């Protein structure tokens, strides 16, 4: 990584002064000022709801900040309440927001063109040129998709990559001076994180400035030149990343030191008695002949790449995808779920991969989002007992430290990480026997992550079993008692105890069939 000492004489690429933003009573940003040096990768860090996305949206002009703040961009000063998307773009700022807007029912090429412009001759789109340009872009970013693929058919991580590629496509025309990435790696697998980070480094090396938001601290320390930490909307520090340790960074973010308490390798209880779940020769979709057990109180991890069938596996166990063959036994009883409801009825729960599309109900309140999966518990004689519902929901908001104005607030007013906590809480509230987690802590900050792990652990001692899919292999290493590796729809390896390391998993996930066997 190149440190920018030789550029020390150049002043800031971007200076943020006195930036404030309030939503009613919530002060999302409170007089934030800091500078970003040109040509550097600048990490923007902070807990869930600390104001990172709000700052970025103010910078992009999509949500103007309060009067009084200003941005100075290579000498041009813009007052913060006058920022518009057009101005922001004209100043050379490019953004990939937290939920990148790709158009699922359009092809990759069309999605790419919408980011810039369609090449045309006399008003007619030159499809060939567009396809060629798109394919080059896909190759440059090593995205495994074709220009003609429908974006909706691609997985979430690939969609994120496409959004990034789209924002970066005119990079070499010097039109872009700074690229702002809001949690681009939240749901990317390790291997693709590397590809993305390489691209980011190349871009920085070409002299561009990058603002990078992530909750993956190791990644931030490794990648960035400087970091800025926000806490509760206030600026805490801006400093070089050199010499920062992960625990030091956590202290800056959380405000106090934090024990990484969940040490499963030692704590792993020997699974007792008959297994909770026995899966035999499960086939369907990309899966072929998958067999495994999960014990009571055990956390089984599934390590696999995008497209390995990991999400489909969870979906099948949850009755949301049909299986073609194989059997499933839950606590000794053969089960066959025709629909999600039946799976829920026997105590299975799923936290889905794509929070926005399959998790939250935008437009409904936090309360309605939390209670939707166990309304029956509050219902007497066909009527929802509103008082009890509110009580219990408030309890969950406290227990999971969900940052919200109140339980009647719209879920869309919550920060990304807090929305994820709502979805997690929705299912943990049901006290499931078998909890299926698909990227459970995407976008959740370090502190909250420990809270969620603690909540999961508490349920484990009550006998709950967990199957966890995560692209973050450190997370798997931290929470799993056992990990199976899924490749091309088959289980190719199994790791236990001390063998569960990020390196091992990365190796096994990528290794060819022979190596892994």
């Amino acid at each position: 990584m190149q440190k920018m000492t030789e550029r020390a004489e150049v002043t800031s690429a971007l200076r943020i002064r006195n930036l404030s933003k309030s939503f009613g009573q919530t002060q999302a940003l409170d007089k934030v000022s800091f500078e970003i040096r040109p040509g550097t990768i600048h990490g923007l860090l902070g807990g869930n709801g600390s104001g990172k996305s709000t700052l970025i949206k103010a910078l992009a002009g999509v949500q103007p900040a309060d009067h009084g703040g200003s941005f100075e961009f290579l000498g041009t000063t813009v007052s913060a309440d006058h920022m518009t998307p057009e101005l922001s773009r004209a100043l050379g700022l490019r953004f990939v927001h937290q939920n990148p807007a790709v158009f699922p029912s359009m092809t990759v090429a069309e999605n790419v063109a919408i980011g810039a412009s369609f090449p045309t001759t006399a008003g007619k789109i030159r499809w060939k040129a567009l396809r060629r340009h798109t394919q080059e872009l896909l190759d440059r970013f090593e995205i495994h998709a074709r220009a003609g693929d429908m974006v909706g058919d691609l997985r979430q991580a690939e969609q994120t990559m496409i959004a990034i590629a789209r924002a970066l496509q005119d990079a070499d025309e010097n039109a872009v001076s700074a690229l702002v990435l809001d949690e681009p790696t939240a749901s990317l697998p390790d291997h693709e994180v590397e590809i993305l980070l390489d691209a980011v480094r190349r871009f920085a090396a070409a002299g561009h400035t990058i603002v990078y938001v992530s909750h993956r601290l190791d990644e931030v320390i490794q990648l960035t030149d400087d970091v800025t930490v926000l806490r509760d909307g206030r600026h805490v520090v801006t400093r070089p990343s050199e010499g920062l340790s992960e625990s030091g960074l956590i202290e800056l973010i959380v405000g106090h030191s934090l024990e990484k308490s969940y040490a499963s390798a030692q704590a792993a209880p020997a699974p007792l008695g008959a297994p909770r779940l026995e899966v035999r020769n499960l086939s369907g979709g990309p899966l072929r002949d998958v067999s495994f057990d999960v014990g009571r109180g055990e956390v089984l991890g599934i390590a696999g790449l995008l497209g390995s069938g990991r999400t489909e596996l969870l979906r099948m166990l949850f009755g949301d995808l049909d299986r073609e063959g194989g059997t499933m036994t839950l606590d000794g009883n053969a089960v066959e779920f025709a629909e999600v409801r039946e799976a829920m009825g026997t105590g299975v729960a799923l936290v889905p991969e794509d929070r926005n599309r399959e998790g939250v109900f935008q437009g409904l309140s936090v309360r309605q989002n939390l209670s939707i999966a166990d309304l029956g518990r509050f219902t007497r004689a066909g009527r929802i007992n509103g008082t009890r519902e509110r009580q219990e929901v408030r309890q969950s908001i406290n227990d999971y430290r969900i940052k919200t104005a109140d339980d009647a607030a719209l879920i869309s007013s919550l920060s990304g990480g807090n929305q994820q906590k709502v979805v997690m809480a929705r299912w943990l509230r049901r006290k499931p026997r078998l909890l299926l987690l698909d990227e459970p802590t995407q976008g959740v900050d370090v502190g909250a992550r420990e809270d969620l792990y603690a909540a999961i652990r508490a349920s484990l001692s009550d006998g709950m079993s967990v199957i966890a899919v995560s692209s973050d292999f450190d997370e798997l290493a931290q929470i799993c008692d056992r990990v199976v590796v899924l490749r091309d729809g088959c289980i190719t390896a199994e790791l236990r105890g001390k063998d569960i390391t990020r390196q091992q998993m990365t190796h096994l996930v990528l290794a060819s069939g022979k190596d892994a066997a």
Partner: protein
Amino acid sequence: MTMVKEAKHFANAPKGSGSVNWTEFFERSGLILLLLLVIVVFAILRPNTFATYANFRSIATVQPVMAVTAIALIVPLIGGRFDVSVGATLGLSAIVTASAMSHFQLPLAAAIGLGVLAGALIGTINGTIVAYLGVNSIIGTLGIATILGGVVTGYTNGIPISSGLSPILTDISIQSVLGIPVLFLLMAVIAVAVWFVLTQTPYGRNLAAVGANADSARLAGIRSKSVVMRSFVIAGALAGIAGVLQIGAQGNAGPQLVGITFILPALAAAFLGATTWQPGRFTVQGTIIGIFFLGTTISGLSLVGIQPWITDVFNGAAVVLAIALSAQLRRRRTGSLDIGS
């Protein structure tokens, strides 16, 4: 430009303000204030005709049928679907009820039962087409409405059924309890029942969830298809009830009311209602306020002596404006403004 959903979410979020949020206050009660304003203005303009007990009584007698029709509309709307056949269903049910009494000499209760059942049956057909055959709800229910229009015209030869009807039903429009028209009271009972189902039961909650995000709903164990299906059955049954009340309101069952224009005020009221009370959401309360706003305005306009064609212009404009306004409010709530479906 990678401008995104999340980014747009907050684009219009209210600016921070003191303890009383006036924007929110006016948003929530704007339509009520507007209704009061309309009443005051016409009362000043026409103190001897508009501001009379007789006129308010007439409004309270004429509007309940439309109010029940509008309430029927919002049930599928909450689940994200349109039922444009409620007007035709209403017409069919009125004919079924009237014909049962007039041509088959059935007692009133049985005739009413048949009328409501006919409505529920049409609702079942609509629901099946939309939920299980995947037909776009506007197109599907428009097709059904057209069929019903044809059938009703064929059966009646375009002649209203006005003889042999039970006087208990046909006189209902002149009955009142403590000065309040019975039709108005019936409407109130129906409104409370639907309000209960929509806000106090798991079914109502599930319907809102399906309307908000069908994929999330599926993964929360909600049977979206059956939820949508039932919303059409409820709408059909309510339209059936409105059909029965229509006989009471006008004293006969006419074949002419099955047209689309008949439900235009109901449609306008549903969307106007979604701009008030809980802005961005369809509510029974808002819908009723919407109906009485439209009804009062039209009554006032006609008393001021405005040409009847203005009514059509007013109703049509109200629909479009109300829908545009409520779409804006929904954008504020959910961050995205969809192109109309």
